[in-house]
């Protein structure tokens, strides 16, 4: 019985010991938990962020730069990290949503399912934007706006709508596309500042800006018309570019030739006058002889070239010249003869061909 009692006593002791040790363990565990809790406010601020400590909800002084931020645990302090250096992006695609919704042959746009806006000349236009921004004021950025992204997007849409409402569709699609982006960004920044959102826009891009697909082909046609017009004008310009210099070259040639001709005329005149002067000098020394000499020299040169027929004697009788073709065929010969015979009333000294004076032979040379 006693041994049994001892047994019970022993087991009770053992249980108590186990309980004690587990309580000790629990105590250490509690201590560790308390330590973890106490250090839970310590935060690492990364290089692209700043930290704001809120003590009982109130921000403490300046923002904390990147590094280790010491703060009290939760209900006392609360740390908000703001990525001030990160460039964040907003994609504004709601003006192009519902493009798949369009069915063939529908030819209309639903104002809510397929949002769009109007340009200055009341054309329908759809666009997509991307905006990039950074946090400029961490406090304002963190605590001033409930739904930052929606509001920032709404502001950009608002400004884009305003800018496009003052721009014609042609300008918006082509020449002033960049202007639309810049102006939208400028106006949006003013609004964001007014709303104290702590956002600085860095860039705003017009990702796409198009007329609705129902009229797209008509817009395409205008583009191809422009190309066509260019293809008409280009050859004309090329012609102009080559024809004018050619004409100038020709003109230069003409004036050059004229100058040369003028030089020629002048030098000829000078040459002639010089030669005249020298001849005159000779002539004045001995007029008669020189005159004769020149006369005979000329005769020599021309008589050597020309066929010459002399007539004897000069001045004693009148001379008549007959022009008769030299007959080659019989018919012609007969004709010649008939002609000859039909005009026998000639002066005896006359004939078609000059002959020696007083000679009564037939005028034609023998065959």
């Amino acid at each position, binding site marked *: 019985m006693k041994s049994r009692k001892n047994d019970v006593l022993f087991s009770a002791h053992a249980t108590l010991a186990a309980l004690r040790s587990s309580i000790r363990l629990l105590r250490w565990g509690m201590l560790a938990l308390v330590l973890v809790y106490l250090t839970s406010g310590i935060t690492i601020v990364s290089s692209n962020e700043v930290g704001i400590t809120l003590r009982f909800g109130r921000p403490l002084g300046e923002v904390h730069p990147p590094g280790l931020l010491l703060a009290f645990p939760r209900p006392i302090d609360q740390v908000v990290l703001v990525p001030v250096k990160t460039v964040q992006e907003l994609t504004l695609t709601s003006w192009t949503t519902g493009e798949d919704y369009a069915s063939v042959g529908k030819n209309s746009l639903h104002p809510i399912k397929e949002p769009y806006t109007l340009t*200055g000349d*009341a054309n329908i236009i759809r666009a997509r934007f991307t905006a990039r921004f950074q946090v400029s004021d961490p406090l304002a950025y963190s605590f001033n706006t409930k739904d930052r992204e929606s509001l920032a997007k709404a502001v950009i849409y608002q400004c884009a709508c305003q800018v496009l*409402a003052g721009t*014609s569709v042609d300008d918006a699609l082509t020449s002033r596309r960049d202007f639309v982006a810049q102006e939208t960004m400028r106006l949006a920044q003013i609004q964001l500042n007014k*709303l104290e959102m702590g956002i600085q826009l860095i860039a705003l891009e017009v990702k796409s800006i198009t007329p609705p697909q129902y009229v797209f082909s008509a817009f395409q046609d205008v583009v191809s018309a422009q190309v066509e017009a260019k293809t*008409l004008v280009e050859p004309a310009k090329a012609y102009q570019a080559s024809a004018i210099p050619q004409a100038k070259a020709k003109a230069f040639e003409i004036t050059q030739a004229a100058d040369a001709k003028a030089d020629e005329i002048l030098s000829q005149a000078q040459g002639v006058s010089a030669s005249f002067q020298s001849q005159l000098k000779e002539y004045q020394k001995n007029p008669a002889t020189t005159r004769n000499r020149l006369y005979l020299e000329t005769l020599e040169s021309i008589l050597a070239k020309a066929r010459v027929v002399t007539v004897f004697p000069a001045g004693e009788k009148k001379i008549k010249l007959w022009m008769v073709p030299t007959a080659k065929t019989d018919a012609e010969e007969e004709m010649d003869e008939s002609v000859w015979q039909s005009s026998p009333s000639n002066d005896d000294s006359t004939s078609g061909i000059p002959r020696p004076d007083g000679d009564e032979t037939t005028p034609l040379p023998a065959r």
Partner: protein
Amino acid sequence: MNNNFLIRYLVAVVVLGILIISVVGFQVQQNEQVVITRFGQPVRTIIQPGLYAKWPWPIETVNTFDTRLNYTEIRISEALTRDKRNVLIPVFVAWKIADSVKFMESMGSQENAENKLDSLVGSNKNTILGQYDFAQLVSVNPSDVRISEIEEKILQASARPAASSFGIEIVQVGIQRLSLPEVNTRYVFDRMRAERSQFAARFRAEGNQQAHEITSRTDAEQAKILAQANKTAEETRGKAEAEAARIYATATSSNPDFYKFLRELDALKRVVNSNTTLVLDTNTPPFNLLKAGSHSGGDNPAKTEKP
């Protein structure tokens, strides 16, 4: 034993303190306003963030309001412009709670506030749009576009009632985009197509015209250049000839007879060639020698013919 007791005592005090603070104290965050109600009756409003104390529940209750900027879209409805054109203009409102007591009493919840704002701003929007022409919404002349003026007017018309009866401050009213009822878009498309084909035709015609212009201008310019050159050439030649004439005149004026004689000889030389047949009487030198020879029986060419 004594030491152990002290630790226990301390822990008990700390736990009790935390308990009391959690019942009596409350925090107001940076972006919040708090209205303390005592048995449902608002007794004070706290705007500054920090730690505050109150009577424990159920005596005093903390009502927290988020004072950050809210973004609400007003439901789209058709509106008429002054010139009776239907437009659908989505508008958003940026607003925040300004007077939390009033807000609590009149609105209660965010949802209710948005509904109230929707009808207030929506009806103001329709009223104010009725004061403007469609041409003041869209115009190719940006200075005619009155969108921001319209936004400002809607804001002004809505701000006072919102503040006085809802405790809400409307910070911004913004027109999101300009749209038309769906049936009208069909006509807009027709017009756009017509405009485009007109443009296309104009571009083609202009291209044609421009090409013609350039070509004919080039032709004209070419002709002008050549004519100018010819004129210059004629002038040059004329001048040269006049000068030559002057030279001839001065040279020959000393003895015109001799000049005439020389010139005639020259002309003869030029005129006579191998195709010319001259019929001369024997008085013409040098043939006069032939005649003289027959009389004198002197040396004549016949003599030389004899071997």
